[in-house]
């Protein structure tokens, strides 16, 4: 294959050419309620050629049939000719890496039978369904995939990587009359089958929480001090701030450049934020991004000041900065774009007890159902939440949706905890058409003043 790929690249008439091929096999077992919805295996083989013709632009060809790579290269070249970017597109220099990244799984899931995977999912599903008669529905999924990934470009890079992924997802739906509540828990990482064993605690937690939510009152809307747990704080920094740090949002846009100017104060001195695709054993980690750039730690906010952003080779060249290893694609059907990897608020010094003790009336918001941003405006729903009364966690409340303006909200973070945690859920990040991309979130507990909570 290597020879075939390199010959095809050599045949290109473009200024820059890259080929990415994937051979991926996946297994999914899903229970919904007491029914096994699916126990299936799929095979996905395909590739992408991307060409850059200076004075024109990018051309892309994607395909499932890998037989004739040369004709795909020609097709991508013709696409590049159609484009007419006014300024010539440049790409920043990176070293041409030649590497084979092998992987070691303690327990390779490809050697495990469908029967065993089904039995595992069934066991967890039964934990949910037998928890309480008010749990009327469940969703329990086991997924694994093994991706043989090849990247090569006309600068001499040739990277081959084995990419395993295993995921477990568990959702409980509780019902009492017309009152329907749900809660979910999940885990995922780039490891073997061992990662998803002994997770009975997750469906139990989901079931108990769904039951608790049946008795929770809807939160009263208004402005509150809010303490976010690690998962919600991690999702918040990813969604509300991280996406603005993606240089493709900024590089063609003078106004956004002004807004995201390095050196601008974004938070108090205690706030430090980074993205790091090189941390071992995290979901968003790879040795190289999908342009062959080595990943690394990139600080975005240091001591409250904006100090960096995330780049592809194109955005780095345009802004005169270094590529950061953040060009990623969800699969071979897409060209890489600037994406996050593992994004986190760095650990602070405040204990949870100190954080909560002065809050007379506030909200302790945990986990995230979903988040959405329209640039500086964001909205997140927490998975579950409690009122804080006189410095203590009080009754559970539901439908807690945090909304606000990013700039004021970041400035309003006035305490950062000393209990940092990485969160690797089975969900993923979406941008444009590309969803879900594996990422992880990290944070300690944080406290934010004056958050607008929607509600009754």
């Amino acid at each position: 294959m290597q020879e075939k790929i390199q010959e095809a690249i050599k045949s290109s008439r473009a200024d820059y050419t890259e080929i990415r091929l994937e051979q991926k096999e996946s297994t999914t077992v899903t229970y919904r309620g007491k029914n096994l919805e699916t126990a299936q295996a799929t095979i996905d083989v395909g590739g992408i050629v991307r060409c850059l013709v200076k004075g024109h632009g990018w051309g892309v060809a994607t395909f499932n049939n890998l037989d004739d790579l040369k004709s795909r290269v020609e097709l991508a070249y013709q696409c590049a000719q159609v484009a007419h970017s006014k300024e010539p597109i440049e790409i920043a220099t990176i070293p041409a890496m030649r590497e084979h990244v092998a992987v070691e799984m303690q327990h390779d899931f490809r050697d495990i039978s469908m029967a065993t995977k089904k039995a595992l999912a069934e066991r967890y599903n039964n934990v949910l369904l037998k928890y309480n008669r008010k749990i009327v529905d469940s969703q329990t999924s086991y997924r694994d995939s093994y991706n043989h990934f090849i990247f090569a470009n006309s600068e001499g890079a040739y990277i081959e990587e084995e990419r395993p992924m295993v995921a477990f997802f568990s959702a409980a739906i509780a019902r009492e009359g017309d009152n329907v509540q749900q809660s979910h828990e999940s885990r995922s990482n780039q490891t073997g089958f061992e990662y998803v064993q002994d997770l009975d605690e997750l469906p139990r937690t989901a079931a108990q929480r769904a039951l608790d939510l049946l008795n929770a009152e809807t939160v009263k809307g208004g402005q509150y001090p809010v303490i976010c747990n690690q998962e919600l704080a991690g999702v918040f920094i990813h969604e509300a701030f991280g996406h603005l740090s993606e240089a493709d949002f900024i590089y063609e846009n003078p106004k956004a450049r002004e807004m995201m100017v390095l050196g601008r104060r974004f938070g108090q001195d205690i706030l430090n934020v980074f993205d790091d695709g090189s941390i071992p054993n995290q979901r968003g980690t790879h040795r190289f991004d999908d342009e062959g750039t080595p990943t690394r730690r990139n600080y975005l906010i240091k001591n409250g000041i904006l100090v960096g952003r995330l780049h592809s080779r194109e955005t780095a060249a345009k802004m005169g900065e270094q590529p950061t290893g953040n060009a990623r694609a969800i699969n071979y059907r897409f060209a890489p774009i600037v994406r996050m990897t593992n994004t986190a608020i760095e650990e602070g010094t405040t204990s949870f007890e100190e954080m909560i003790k002065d809050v007379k009336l506030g909200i302790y918001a945990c986990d995230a159902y979903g988040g959405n941003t329209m640039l500086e405006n964001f909205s997140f729903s927490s998975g579950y939440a409690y009122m804080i009364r006189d410095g203590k966690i009080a009754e559970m409340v539901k439908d807690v949706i945090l909304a606000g303006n990013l700039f004021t909200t970041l400035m309003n973070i006035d305490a950062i905890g000393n209990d940092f945690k990485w969160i690797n859920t089975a969900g993923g990040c979406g941008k444009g058409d590309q969803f879900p991309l594996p990422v992880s979130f990290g944070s300690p507990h944080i406290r934010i003043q004056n958050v607008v909570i929607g509600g009754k």
Partner: protein
Amino acid sequence: MDILKQLQTQAEQVEVVKIQSESTTVEYEANLLKSSKVEQTQGVAVRVVRKGRLGFAASSDEHALDRLVANALESAAYGDKIPLEFPAPVPPPAVKTYDPKIAEFPIPRLVEIGQEILDILLPIEPEARINIALNRGVNQFSLRNQAGAEIAFQRSPLSISIELSSVKEDDILILYDMLGTTIWEENYIGFVHRLADKLKLSKKLTRVHSGHMPVLFSPSGGLVLGLPLMVGLDGKNVFTGISPLIGKLGSELFDSKLTLVDDGTLDGKFGSAPYDDEGVAHRRNALIEKGVLKGFYYDLKTALQSGTESTGNAARGLFNPPSPSVTNLVVEPGQTPLAEIIGGIENGVLVEDVLGLGQGNILSGAFSNPLGLAFKIEKGEIVGRVKNASIAGNVYDLLKDVAAISRETQWVFNNLSMPYMLLSDMNVVAKE
């Protein structure tokens, strides 16, 4: 090899679906034509029922058909015990989904249309950053099963989507709109003018104060109300008992002005095709008629589980088995002209778009969203754009009383036809 014949010797029921598509996309990014893309996709998906158990497998690798067959049989060995029967052939309804004009649409013409769009929008907001994706393609779908169905049809989707953003100080304005059709639309530029009108209205910023007030949902904003209904009417959620609409067929749950129809037989619309993805003929399904709950939407499996018939609403991607999905969703127009509705509002809000659509507990009908794009209506006139406010409520309560539904409707999000809907009393929370 003929997978159907091969599997028929080993399974009671067999379905083989092949998809093949090619498409071309031209992309303007920040007003510049920076890239174009060709995509060729192919794949085979197989379902079998063997010894009463359902199995599924799929592959995009045409050299791996042996493994595809083996995977399908293995899947059936552990699969759901369900007496699913794939349907015998029926004649298709008349519906147009293919236009050679789109199939043969030249790339330079896509490029030109992109430029026309920029020429309309940029003079209104010269500093706007406009992303446009123009896509044309041809999709071929074929399905064969052991009952003798041999279905093949093609669609020629053309879609144009626009995202316009404009940043001023810390105010960021984003507008979206899209056109989707499978037969050539002479007025392909109409939706751009609709976006241009919103852009003009957006220039002036104003504020609302918290309180109860009438809220008018535009066709695109109406999705806030429509999305929980789509989830609640899904046959799968009804069967599993989590839809709040369970057991309420025939009840008058909504305002009598409200009629909601799913119709996959409308010429040229994005959700249209002669058959659904299991070979069941598309048809018109009334879901809500004059406020009365008339039906749910099902695929074969959820219909069988619920003791009813498929409504022709199966949809699938290559790598997933079918599940119920809407085709084209139509809220029937009302009696009142839009101008009259707006003219009658003393102090209210027009909602075009919210943040975080679909998050939270939408199964229950509850929503709570900050406004994305919204306008203030004062003394019967739209006076400016508002932000920093949010709306909340429950659609099952709110839609019991709809103050007015407009005569005018628009196609939005490619497969929804919506009028303007006025709710007379909603809680708007503003950050003062």
